[in-house]
C-alpha cells in the first residue's frame, strides 16, 4: 500500500479528521445545546451573569409553557387548599396558580397541520409536474421551467403586501388553508426542480418495460417510477417541511388568533416580569422534535436510495 491511498486513511489522518468533525459538531450544536439547557433552568438561572453551565434542573419552563397562570394574593394563598400534583406545587412556590392550559398546544398543532399539509401538497403536485416536465412534450418547456424557477428569485416576503391584500379579499387571512396554500406556493418551485432532476435520472426504459408487461402509463408511474424516486421525494419533503415549519415572517403577518403557528407564538411567551426565557427555550426544544423525527425516519431513503440502476448504458 502506498502513502497516498484514496480509500484507506492512515492513523494520523483519522485522528485529525475526527478532531475536525468533533470541533465542527461542537460549534454547530452549541446553540442547540444551550437552548435545551435553558429549557431546564429556573428563571433566575436562565438570566444569570456570568451564565451558569452547572445548575439545578427544573421543569418550571415546561410547566409555564403549557399552562396559563395567575398570581395569588396572600389571602388567596391562605384559603386555597395545598397543591397536590408536582406542577401545582412548583407553580405555587412562586405564588401562582394554574388556571388552565396555555395556547402553546394549539399553536403547535397548527404548525403540524400547516407544515405537513403544505409539504404533502408541494411534494404531491411537484412530483406530478416534474414527471410531466421530464417525460412529456410540453410546449415551451424550457420557458415554463425558467418561470417556475423565477418565482424563487426574490424573497417571498417581498410580495407580502399583495399577498396580504389578496388573502384578506379571499377570506384566507388567519386560516390554516391559507397558510398551507401560501407555503405550497413558495415550496412548489423547489419541489418541481428537485424532483425533475431525480425523475430525469430514472431511465424511461423501465416504464416501457412496464407498459409491455401489461401495465398502463399511470400504473407504470405508480409501480415503477415512484419507488425509484423515493430518494428524491424524501429529500424534497424534508426541504419543504423545514421551510414551512420554520417560516416566521408570513406567519406573523397573516395569522393571529386562529391559525397562528408556533414560531411567532414562542417569543411572545411572557411571564410576570419580562420574557420567560426557560419557557421560550422549552417551546423551542419541543418545536424541534417533529422535524428531527421526520428527518431521521426519512434518513434511510436519503442514504440507501442511491441505486445503480439495472439498465445498461
Amino acid at each position, binding site marked *: 500500500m502506498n502513502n497516498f491511498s484514496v480509500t484507506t486513511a492512515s492513523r494520523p489522518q483519522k485522528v485529525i479528521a475526527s478532531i475536525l468533525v468533533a470541533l465542527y459538531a461542537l460549534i454547530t450544536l452549541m446553540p442547540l445545546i444551550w437552548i435545551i439547557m435553558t429549557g431546564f433552568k429556573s428563571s433566575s438561572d436562565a438570566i444569570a451573569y456570568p451564565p451558569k453551565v452547572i445548575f439545578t434542573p427544573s421543569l418550571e419552563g415546561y410547566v409555564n409553557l403549557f399552562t396559563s397562570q395567575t398570581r395569588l394574593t396572600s389571602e388567596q394563598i391562605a384559603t386555597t387548599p395545598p397543591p397536590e400534583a408536582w406542577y401545582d406545587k412548583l407553580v405555587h412556590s412562586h405564588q401562582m396558580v394554574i388556571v388552565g392550559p396555555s395556547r402553546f398546544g394549539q399553536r403547535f398543532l397548527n404548525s403540524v397541520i400547516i407544515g405537513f399539509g403544505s409539504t404533502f401538497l408541494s411534494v404531491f403536485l411537484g412530483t406530478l409536474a416534474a414527471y410531466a416536465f421530464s417525460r412529456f412534450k410540453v410546449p415551451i418547456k424550457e420557458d415554463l421551467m425558467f418561470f417556475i424557477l423565477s418565482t424563487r428569485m426574490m424573497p417571498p416576503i417581498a410580495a407580502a403586501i399583495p399577498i396580504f391584500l389578496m388573502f384578506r379579499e379571499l377570506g384566507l387571512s388567519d386560516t390554516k388553508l391559507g397558510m398551507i396554500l401560501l407555503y405550497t406556493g413558495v415550496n412548489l418551485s423547489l419541489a418541481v426542480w428537485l424532483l425533475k432532476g431525480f425523475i430525469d435520472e430514472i*431511465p424511461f*426504459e*423501465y416504464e*416501457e*418495460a*412496464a*407498459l*409491455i*408487461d*401489461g*401495465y*398502463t402509463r399511470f*400504473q407504470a408511474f405508480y409501480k*415503477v417510477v415512484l*419507488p*425509484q424516486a423515493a430518494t428524491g421525494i424524501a429529500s424534497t419533503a424534508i426541504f419543504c417541511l423545514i421551510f414551512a415549519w420554520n417560516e416566521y415572517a408570513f406567519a406573523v403577518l397573516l395569522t393571529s388568533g386562529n391559525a397562528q403557528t408556533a414560531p411567532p407564538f414562542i417569543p411572545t411567551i411572557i411571564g410576570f416580569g419580562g420574557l420567560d426565557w426557560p419557557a421560550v427555550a422549552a417551546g423551542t426544544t419541543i418545536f424541534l422534535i417533529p422535524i428531527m423525527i421526520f428527518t431521521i425516519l426519512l434518513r434511510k431513503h436519503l442514504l440507501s436510495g442511491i*441505486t*445503480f*440502476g*439495472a*439498465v*445498461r*448504458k
Partner: protein
Amino acid sequence: MAEIVLENLSKSFGNTVGVENISMTIPDGAFVVLLGPTGAGKTTALRLVAGLEMPDQGDVQMNGQSVLALNPAQRDVTMVFQQYSLYPHLTVRENMAFPLRSPLLKTPQEEIDRRIKEVAEVLHIEHKLENKATELSGGEMQRVAIGRALVRDPNIYLMDEPLSSLDAKLRAELRVELKRIHQNLGATLLYVTHDQVEAMSMATHVGVLQDGKLVQFGSPREIYENPVSQYVAERLGSPRINVMPADLFGGAPKGAITIGLRPEHIVQGSGGIKGRINRVEHLGDHTRIHLSLSGNDLIAVMDPHNPVSHGDILAISPQNPIFFDANGIRIQ
C-alpha cells in the same frame, strides 16, 4: 401465438429515417431474425410491433386485426430490451412475477411460482431469485430479462439482441434453449441481432434491413446462398464474403463490377490464377488462409490438414461466384 403482419410501415424521427415502407409477414410459430448494422432500423421495427412507437404510416396486424389503436399492454407482446431494463427496486423473483401480476393477466400465486421456477431452471438463475436486480452481473441481468419474457405466453416475443452481453458458452447454451422453447411452445419470435451465428442457427426466416428498408426476407439458407445484393451477402457468413473486381477470374457477365466469393467457395489448385499466402490460421476443424491475389486480399477456408504455409504460391479457382453491378445489386 399469432400471425403478425407489417404493412408498408414507415417511421421517421425528425430527419432520421427509422424504418421505411417495411412489409413483412411473420407466420404463426416463426422465428424471424432481423439482421442489419446499427442504425438500420431493427430496434425501431421491434418497437413499432410492441406499440412503443406509432408508425407515420402503415399498419401492424395481429391475427388479421389492426393493433395500431391498442397500447402495448393490450397487444399482449413481450419484449427483451437490449438494456435489460430490470426494475432495480425489485428482486429477481418480483421482476419475473411483474408481468404475471399485471391487471391484464392477474395470474394466481401458485401459477406464478410454478412458472418462475420452470423458467429460472432453464436460465440457471434459481439461486439468484431472492437477489435484488441490481446485485446481478451483466449476464445474469440479461438472463432475468429473458426470463421476464418467457414466463408469459404472448402473441409474440420481441427480443432486441438478448444474448449480446453473455459469454460464449452461455450464449451457445441459450441459443439452443431459445430454439427449444420456440419449437416446444410453437412460439412466434421477432429477434434482432447482428450476430450471424444466431441468425443462422435459430431463424426460420431472416429479414435484412438496410437504412430502414427491408432488402431481403427469406430462409437463412436462401439469404446466404442467394443474396440480392452485396450488402445482404456481407451480412451473413464468417469470415465475410470476399468481394473483388469482377474481371479477376474472367467470365464476368455484362455490367458486373464486383465478384463475391464465399471463403469456402475458393478451391485450391485447379485454376490458372495464383495467389500468395500471407497468413495461415489453424482453427482445428478448418484452416483459414489469407491470400493476396493481384493486390486483392481474400480469405479462403480449407481442409485442416492442408499442408500449406506462409509464403507459398497457391493456384485457386472460384466456385459459385456471385456478381454485383455498380450499385451492389446482384446480376443473375
